[in-house]
């Protein structure tokens, strides 16, 4: 159980980078960008292909992320210059990327099991610090019988994800970042304040897909393979993370939301793992997409129901107070 939860948190932290990308397009730019399903694979596929070809893993990862950035820019171009509806631009790009990714990859699945990846490099560097032995010793002393083989990936990936979060927080408060946020909030207004909204949308969607592709590149290296189908439903997973995060942790400030999105991504993984492991539910891994859809629906509906109930209670309390006052006046 501990191992399963650990695995869920570990991948949650990596998928959180993708969720931050989805947050940037979906929430900040108010742009429902479906490119994500394709650009996730672009990052994974190109990085895997390059690693197999002998490119240093760090370079391969950066190139993979950059390829996602380019894909996003093209979606932005289709929407702004081509005047194609946002949803449709994303769908077109997603479909086009499916073929493009296969072209790059050369085959539907690339295995990385016997390759040196960025994550395996980090893992061996981590092993030299000897922190694992310490944590394992501590956990065993606390009574855990099976412990994760390494904490390095979790901790290093968490550091990377948090660093990206802080960079994103900073960026969204810069002059350019403010203009990007305003583009999603009131385009007419920011254009009247001399911001080139077309450019900002292109760059924003580009950055969003760059993060998604980076996440894809890391997921491929973590899982040990890249597959041309691994991106299917990724946008919904991203949305699930954003929506669950916002519902649970609030969205008062930018820094709060980005943290919430990371939390949402981790919680999503935990819930999915628990659901799949719950024998009485009798779920199989092919039910994953259904679980995701149900999760998003719950996260969307629950806050509204709670809000409605709170309102109802508040009104009832006021009504009771009024009745009491009237009774008091009648008896007086």
């Amino acid at each position, binding site marked *: 159980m501990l191992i399963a939860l650990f695995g869920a948190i570990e991948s949650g932290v990596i998928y959180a980078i993708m969720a931050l990308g989805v947050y940037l397009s979906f929430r900040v730019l108010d742009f429902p960008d479906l490119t994500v399903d394709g650009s996730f694979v672009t990052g994974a596929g190109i990085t895997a292909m390059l690693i197999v070809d002998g490119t240093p893993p760090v370079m391969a990862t950066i190139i993979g992320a950059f390829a996602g950035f380019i894909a996003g820019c093209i979606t932005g171009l289709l929407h702004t210059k081509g005047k194609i509806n946002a949803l449709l631009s994303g769908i077109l790009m997603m479909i086009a990327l499916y073929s493009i990714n296969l072209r790059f990859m050369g085959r539907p699945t690339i295995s990385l099991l016997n390759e040196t990846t960025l994550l395996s490099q980090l893992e061996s560097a981590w092993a030299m610090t000897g922190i694992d032995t310490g944590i394992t010793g501590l956990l065993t002393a606390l009574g855990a019988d099976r412990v994760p083989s390494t904490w390095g990936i979790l901790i290093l990936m968490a550091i990377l994800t948090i660093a990206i979060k802080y960079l994103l927080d900073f960026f969204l408060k810069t*002059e350019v970042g403010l203009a990007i946020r305003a583009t999603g909030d*009131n385009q007419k*207004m920011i254009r*009247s304040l001399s911001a080139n909204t077309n450019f900002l949308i292109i760059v924003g969607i580009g950055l969003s897909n760059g993060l998604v592709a980076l996440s894809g590149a890391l997921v491929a290296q973590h899982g040990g393979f890249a597959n041309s189908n691994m991106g299917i439903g990724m946008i919904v997973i991203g949305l699930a993370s954003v929506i669950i995060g916002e519902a649970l942790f609030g969205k008062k400030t930018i820094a709060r939301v980005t943290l919430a999105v990371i939390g949402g991504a981790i919680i999503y993984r935990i819930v999915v793992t628990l659901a799949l492991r719950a024998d009485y539910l009798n779920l199989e891994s092919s039910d994953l997409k259904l679980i995701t859809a149900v999760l998003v629906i719950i996260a969307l509906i629950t806050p509204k129901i709670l809000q409605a109930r709170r309102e109802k209670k508040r009104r009832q309390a006021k009504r009771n107070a009024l009745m009491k006052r009237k009774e008091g006046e009648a008896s007086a």
Partner: protein
Amino acid sequence: MLKLEDISMTFNEDTPDEKIALQDVNVELEKGEFVTVIGSNGAGKSTLMNVISGSLIPDVGNVLINDQNVVNFPEYKRSKMIGRVFQDPMAGTAPSMTIEENLAMAYARDKKRRLVPGVNKKRQDFFQSYLETLSLGLEDRLNAKVGLLSGGERQALSLLMATFTEPYILLLDEHTAALDPSRAELITEITQNVVDQFGLTTLMVTHNMQQALDLGDRLFMMDKGQIILDIKGEEKQNLTVKDLLDEFQRIRGKQIDSDRAVLG
């Protein structure tokens, strides 16, 4: 400062819906001139504003700002030189962002946007000192989301954002029309103050004839895509609403429905 040369614009040309919005408009505004523009609906006032701001590109003609022909500049480029306030109080600000963030975006209007924080201590003080001039208490609410402000407050903020970088041209498109009378009066007063303070060259569209007479030092009356009346200086000072209606009638040579002229 602002010069319009032979501007013509027709919508839906060669269709039954053809509409001549502007017809050979020639105008020159001196620096610091404050022009009020009146006219019935469809007279071409909004089209004129949109042609100047760059939201619309005229069929023919030039728009010169500070002797530079900007007719082929896209809207965002032109807005470095032009401040605008729209009729809809919701249109001029970003609701989910804070007051200081909105001001920071307006502050960056005439500069290149960079990767440095939009708000810092120095700018906050600067924003505060300007917000104080509104006397609405907004200076104490820098971190409030603009969506929480009332329509009047948002319009006052829009006005400040449009003006405090001292653009060459200020365009006000019926910016008090959606407010209640007392708020409209307040915004009118603020308008007068900021235009005076910065000496801005201003074009203000209004349907309120009295407002058109009270504000500014020059007045255009538009009809059927043309400026049919251009009054300035002392002559404008002595003008009354009745004069305007008579003048309109004389030029057009027909009985007009006064309600339509007043209310549009």
